[in-house]
């Protein structure tokens, strides 16, 4: 476990930090900007001191202000991937890796520089000067540099946020490889649901420096009470299920969600591959009877588990779809006219074209 407690002063507010993060796989620190996610990483790395703080990593105390303990950042054996790559401009890309290799953790034998170069396909970049790298390439080198130092813990601070969508898509598979091939726990700060749903094994939802909710990605996304936090536009859930079949004629893919079938525009994955998709609340409608003659092909049986009426025109409805949570955003008027209430069996209409294709993880990585 990584345990952090203490007080951090921000320009606008003071936050009491109390975070315990598991140290396995990729742990996503998720939440809106300005809620102290980056500061948590800086506290973990020792780049930020805070006030009266306590930081413990895997049983080892890194900071304990009450007892005057503070382990300097360079002695913590952590890797840090910054939002801006922070590659050293006076060295080549390869020189940056060498810099890390020279000071690498002597307590571990691997990964070696060569392994990292292979894993992240860095060989063609090594001789280049830092300013000749594209944003995506620079970030890849920065990830490689952090790994070459053989850290016990890798901290990644929104490593993709300065990149455009295409560059992000280029790098995501590499971060997935880090997860698959390296035995290094990762704390990954992001405010992007895309990255979170694709990468994280465990999520801590960060609000005011503290953990508002935690759990697996689908679990956290289903929490109705977190809706306003995630933002209206982003409100939705993550569904996870295996690919059942591909329909080549119409380029459609069948996914098993619970006991039902969700038909999606073509997902490039073998049958049996687990995929995650994100369904936004605003793309889910509700019918009280099985609909006919609709262009929406997905009408899944679900039970209403909760209805939250908002002040304005809208209401959020939490549905139970064979054990999966699903959120629907409808008008209050519809709730009244259809006499919707908790416990009712309804049909959830999911517009398949609305599902953002970027959210679909690359095939073959998560087999059942």
């Amino acid at each position, binding site marked *: 476990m990584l345990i952090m407690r203490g007080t951090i002063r921000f320009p606008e507010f003071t936050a009491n930090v109390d975070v315990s993060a598991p140290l396995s796989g990729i742990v996503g620190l998720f939440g809106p900007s300005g809620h102290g996610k980056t500061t948590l990483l800086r506290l973990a790395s020792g780049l930020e001191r805070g006030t009266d703080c306590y930081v413990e990593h895997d049983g080892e105390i890194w900071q304990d202000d009450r007892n005057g303990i503070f382990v300097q*950042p*360079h002695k913590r054996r952590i890797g840090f991937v910054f939002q801006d790559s922070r590659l050293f401009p*006076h060295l080549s890309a390869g020189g940056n890796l060498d810099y890390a290799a020279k000071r690498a953790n002597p307590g571990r034998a691997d990964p070696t520089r060569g392994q990292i170069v292979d894993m992240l396909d860095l060989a063609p970049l090594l001789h280049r000067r830092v300013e000749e790298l594209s944003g995506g390439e620079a970030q890849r080198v920065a990830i490689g540099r952090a790994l070459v130092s053989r850290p016990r813990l890798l901290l990644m601070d929104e490593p993709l946020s300065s990149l455009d969508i295409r560059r992000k898509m280029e790098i995501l598979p590499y971060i997935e490889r880090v997860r698959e091939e390296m035995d290094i726990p990762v704390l990954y700060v992001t405010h992007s649901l895309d990255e979170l749903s694709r990468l994280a094994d465990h999520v801590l939802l960060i609000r005011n420096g503290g953990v508002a909710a935690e759990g697996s990605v689908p679990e956290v996304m289903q929490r109705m009470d977190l809706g306003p936090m995630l933002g209206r536009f982003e409100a939705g859930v993550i569904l996870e299920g295996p690919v059942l079949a591909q329909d080549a004629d119409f380029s459609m893919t069948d996914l098993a969600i619970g006991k039902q079938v969700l038909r999606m525009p073509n997902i490039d994955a073998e049958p049996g591959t687990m995929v995650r998709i994100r369904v936004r609340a605003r793309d889910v409608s509700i019918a009280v009877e099985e609909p006919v003659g609709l262009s929406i092909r997905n009408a899944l049986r679900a039970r209403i588990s909760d209805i939250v009426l908002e002040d304005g025109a809208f209401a959020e409805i939490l549905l139970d779809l064979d054990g999966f949570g699903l959120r629907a955003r409808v008008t209050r008027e519809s709730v009244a006219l259809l006499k919707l209430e908790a416990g009712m069996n309804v049909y959830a209409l999911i517009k398949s074209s609305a599902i953002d294709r970027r959210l679909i993880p690359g095939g073959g990585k998560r087999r059942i």
Partner: protein
Amino acid sequence: MSPGDLSAILLTLKLAGATSVILVLIGTPLAWWLSHTRSRLRWIIEPAVALPLVLPPTVLGFYLLILLGPAGAIGGAWVQLTGETLAFSFSGLLIASVIYSLPFAVQPLQTAFQSVGTRHMEAAATLGASPLDAFMTVASPIAIRGYITAAVLTFAHTVGEFGVVLMVGGNIPEKTRVISIAIFEHVETLSYTEAHRLSIGLLIFSFLVLMAVTILHRRAPVRAG
């Protein structure tokens, strides 16, 4: 050229070279501190460093003369230690030059360190580099332009000083008579040809130095960022 002028030139080069080396050594930690500290002490130290820019050289020279003289705090101690006086000696001249040229070393370094910022130092720390290691292997190479500018400006400024040298060093051939003093003496004795020879040399030298600094700032890779 007379042997006197030649020795004045050699003495000037020796003084300027030694001043540059000492000032880069002293100026580096001072500039680093000024560019990173949040201590209120900087509101005193920073203007104190800049003082020689605005103070008449005679004022500075006057106080240095008192301080370095056999009755002064430093000069007295020096006499006890070495048996020689600081005032009107090369060592005294060197101390005066170091103080007089301090801002010319500190300010370019401070600017360079400020533009390096803390970003790369933090990255180095997370890669296992101690603060000193990170300073030597990351901040200094990135700030290399600041070092060159500091050394060149210090050198040139020391070559061009007059007032402080006259006050502290006087005009002793082969000990404290530098080029600018030699020119002054040539003019005093109406030896205009000799004065011309040295003056035009200094003029060309100064111009070339400033040109080199300008080109350096335009051409050298901008590395901060």
